[in-house]
């Protein structure tokens, strides 16, 4: 009898979870992600000096820094997934919730990874990338720039190039792909050989990026907790399809 009683209680509890708790969590998630998504597009007032300058750069560049664009797109996809299941939707199974959480978590992990791991590029890739093409007037031929996000930092790297003589005695070894290239790295572009003579790197902490990353982490934990809550019932019912 006790067992049956327990079973019925847990079933009620599970129904409550599906009907109320899930939507509460989804609402919370949506709020957090909307906040995060907003950061990608609206300038935060009250920035001074260098920060303000950097922010200006981000504003003008943000569609061009692929990492920000990708992160924004991933967040938007996650939001889209969540908005498809608003309060009017009644979840019938735990598996359904799990599936939704998996999809959301995948997008969030992607978005976060995009910001935490800058793409490693070869110098020719960098030279032909969209970053170099967006300047008007175009950059001088002996300068290359790279913008990327690393965690909550915006990094700007300027490479001073030095064209190598065609009949140089120095043996030419093209460098591989890397986030940051060192002086002395060589590459070939349009049949001309170049060597990096100087590298300047500027970093700047962008507070709103930091916040965004925290939002991502919180959202991911919320998702996982919801999944764990559901799995408690699944183990209680000993693998019955629920």
């Amino acid at each position, binding site marked *: 009898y006790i067992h049956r009683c327990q079973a019925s209680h847990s079933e009620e509890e599970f129904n409550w979870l599906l009907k109320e708790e899930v939507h509460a969590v989804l609402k919370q998630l949506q709020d957090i992600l909307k906040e995060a998504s907003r950061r990608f597009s609206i300038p935060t007032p009250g920035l001074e000096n260098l920060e303000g300058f950097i922010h200006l750069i981000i504003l003008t560049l943000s569609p061009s820094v*692929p990492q920000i664009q990708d992160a924004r797109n*991933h967040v938007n996809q996650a939001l889209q997934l969540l908005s498809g299941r608003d309060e009017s939707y009644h979840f*019938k199974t735990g598996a359904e919730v799990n*599936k939704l959480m998996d*999809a959301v978590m995948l997008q969030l992990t992607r978005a976060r990874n995009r910001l935490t791991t800058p793409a490693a590029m070869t110098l020719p890739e960098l030279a032909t990338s*969209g970053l170099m093409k967006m300047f008007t007037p175009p950059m001088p031929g002996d300068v290359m720039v790279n913008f990327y996000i690393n965690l909550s930092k915006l990094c700007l790297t300027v490479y001073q190039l030095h064209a190598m003589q065609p009949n140089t005695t120095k043996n030419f070894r093209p460098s591989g792909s890397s986030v940051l290239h060192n002086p002395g790295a060589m590459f070939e572009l349009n049949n001309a050989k170049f060597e990096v003579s100087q590298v300047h790197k500027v970093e700047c902490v962008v507070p709103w990026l930091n916040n965004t990353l925290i939002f991502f982490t919180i959202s991911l934990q919320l998702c996982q907790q919801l999944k764990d809550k559901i799995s408690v019932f699944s*183990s209680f019912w000993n693998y019955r399809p629920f």
Partner: protein
Amino acid sequence: MSGNSLVLPIVLWGRTAPTHCISSLLVMDDLTTIITGCHDGQICIWDMTSDLEISPRAMLFGHTASITCLSKASPCSDKQYIVSASESGEMCLWDVNDGRCIEFTKLACAHTGIQFYQFTVGTQRECRLLCNGHYPEILVVDATSLEVLYSLVSKISPDWISSMSIIHSHRTQGSLLHALLCNTVLCYTILPYIMLCYTMLYNTTIYYLLICPPVTRFFYGRREPFHKLLVQGDSAGRLSLWSIPDTSPLQPLSTALQVSSTISLQEAFDKLAPLSAGIIDQLSVTPGSEEPIKVTASVYIPSQGRLVCGREDGSIILVPATQTAIVQLLQGEHMLRRGEGGGSGECGSGESVGQGRDRVAEGGVMSQALSLAPLWALQNRVQHCVCSVASDHSVGLLSLRERKCIMLASRHLFPIQVIKWRPCDDYLVVGCSDGSVYVWQMDTANSLSYTDLSPSVLQDTILRLCVSQGNLQKYSNNSLVVQAMKTNLTDPDMHVLFFDVESVIIQLLTEEAQRPNPTLVSPETLQKAQGAADKGGSFLANKIFKQVKETMKETIKEHLLDEDEEEEEEMRRREEKSKSLSLLEYNLTMDTAKLFMSCLHAWGLNGPLDEVCLSRLGMLKPHCPISFGLISRGGHMSLMLPTFKESLLRQMALATGRKLSLSEIGGKGTYGVSRAVTTQHLLSVISLANTLMGMTNATFVGEHMKKAPVRPPRPGTPETPKKSAAPPQVSSPAVQGQIKQGNYKRIFSLGAVLGEPLMYRAGSKRCEEAAQALLLAELRRIGQSGRKDTIDLWAPYLPQYVDQVSSRKSTPCVCVSFLRLSTVF
């Protein structure tokens, strides 16, 4: 499992169909095949008849993440290639006919749409794949090499492209680009049509619970039969077809459309008779219930040939792997026990280890068993441990000896993906799915450090460091490896047996060499020895001869005992056998070879030969066609679903004009499914038969199948020869050996004959490799003198042959012809 050696997978799917939550689907142009991709990364190939009946045929493994899109990748129908892309940026080119992976590549970003496009440059036909996805470009990829040729980028505010459509224009090919970049779906004339169907569809059919929205697509046949099909795949692994009648698109259909055909993977599995076998079903089906207890985690210990299975009720079972596989796959004296309640002490019964700890195996992955015979100086306590992961993301070290949990690490917020340890330092490193890494001290369960938000790169690095340290074991015997697989974390385990043909052969030869009486290797040597003795040769020869004589006597004795047909004896033997099995005193290599040969032999093609195989060689017939697999490039794998027989039966019924039963098709079944698989099988059979031919005890009946070599003579009868029942050929081991050799030779040549035409057709690198392995085995067999003889014999013919085989393709055929001839001689 390296790609070089010939490795054959055999699958035990179990009764539960793998989870197949369909994320994308594709109908091939000729409307005979449907391809579905699922959220867990597998691809399923379904056969479709002209009457729109569908049955799943094979499952392709290799993608690590959800399949995002599928597209055809070849223009003509004789070469059916498809390309698949996954969420993690992988792209893979498959051959639909045999499930072979032809090419694969990985990009940083995921594709969400691929379109096949073919054009002609001069007389050359060029095939391209146009891809869009999580990047602001359209990538143009070569359809055969999967290389990115160039990309199309918009200069004005590039962003991700959600979909594209190719408009075929008669004027120029230039209009293509324009159409590509407009970011909208262009779907003319069909569009209103689909809308109509959608509305009807949702009213009528959805009656079971789905966990995510189904995928629906519209296809129309360009050839006979001109079906217009609406295909839907959903999260339950169900495919539904609606055949749309020919009406004008503008005219609404008067009645709701009926489902033409629908089937799910699980339904297909349930329809099977006998049901698809799981690896320890004989132990897991409890008398009261229908369903076996699900195996949720398993690990194979190759040094002992044992399989450790963790079950959903929390118990862990140890079974000898080959024995349990034989029970599940083959017919034999153990038949009665198949699917029966698991009394302990029965064939293949295990020792229950960890009853009662509920969280042990639940939904978790038992990632590794700590070595049972470690090379490193581990602390004694940790030495005999099994590491387990529970559904609350905790890690436990369970001592097999003390039968309790000696360490519990439970602070992880996210599911655990990987566990490594550095035994010398007593550390356990746990990697979670969110990228965090925890380091634990094994002895005290202290959490030493924790890094959050570490990029996946860092996690990889840390774990790689551990791998180099933690790789303890190296086994020489990897002829059989049992790998547990699950498509979804919530699924019960299915098991794949990987047979490494070369290893089996090497192992057989090694054991042969280690035998106490190496002189008894083959009848040839026996004859040689006799000849030498007759000549009154050296002392050594005499000694050998004596030895041979003694062993002969012994063998006769043993054999006579074997021939004994009294029930009592039979019973006793059985008892003995099962006892010895539970004590694990059996010959692992011979068992492996037996299982392997029995699975691979082409049953049903040659009646008398089958009889010989059963009675003399001790091979066993399979219950029903066995689900084989095919390993192709880069660890990609195709596994036949148990339901492949259905479509096979249908085909054969069409061919013969009558209904066939499963047992009738037996071997013919597997020899006809796919060219690549057949080639591999024939080569394996040939090379293995070849090896067994040269062995002393090259039969799977008799005493040597057990490790304990000497059996006490039965009191009473031993010396008297058993009456007429004993056929004449058993009188001398030499003759007996010759007969066996002859039998193998027959299997061998059957394989060779079957194989030859195939080789011509499938002249590929894979085939060549296999042929090479085969040739090597043959050379090994004939030995130095044999090699010389063959060369002498062939010397006059060789030059012409070499001229003919200058092209790479025909090498295997020559090898086989050569081998065949060499056996005939």
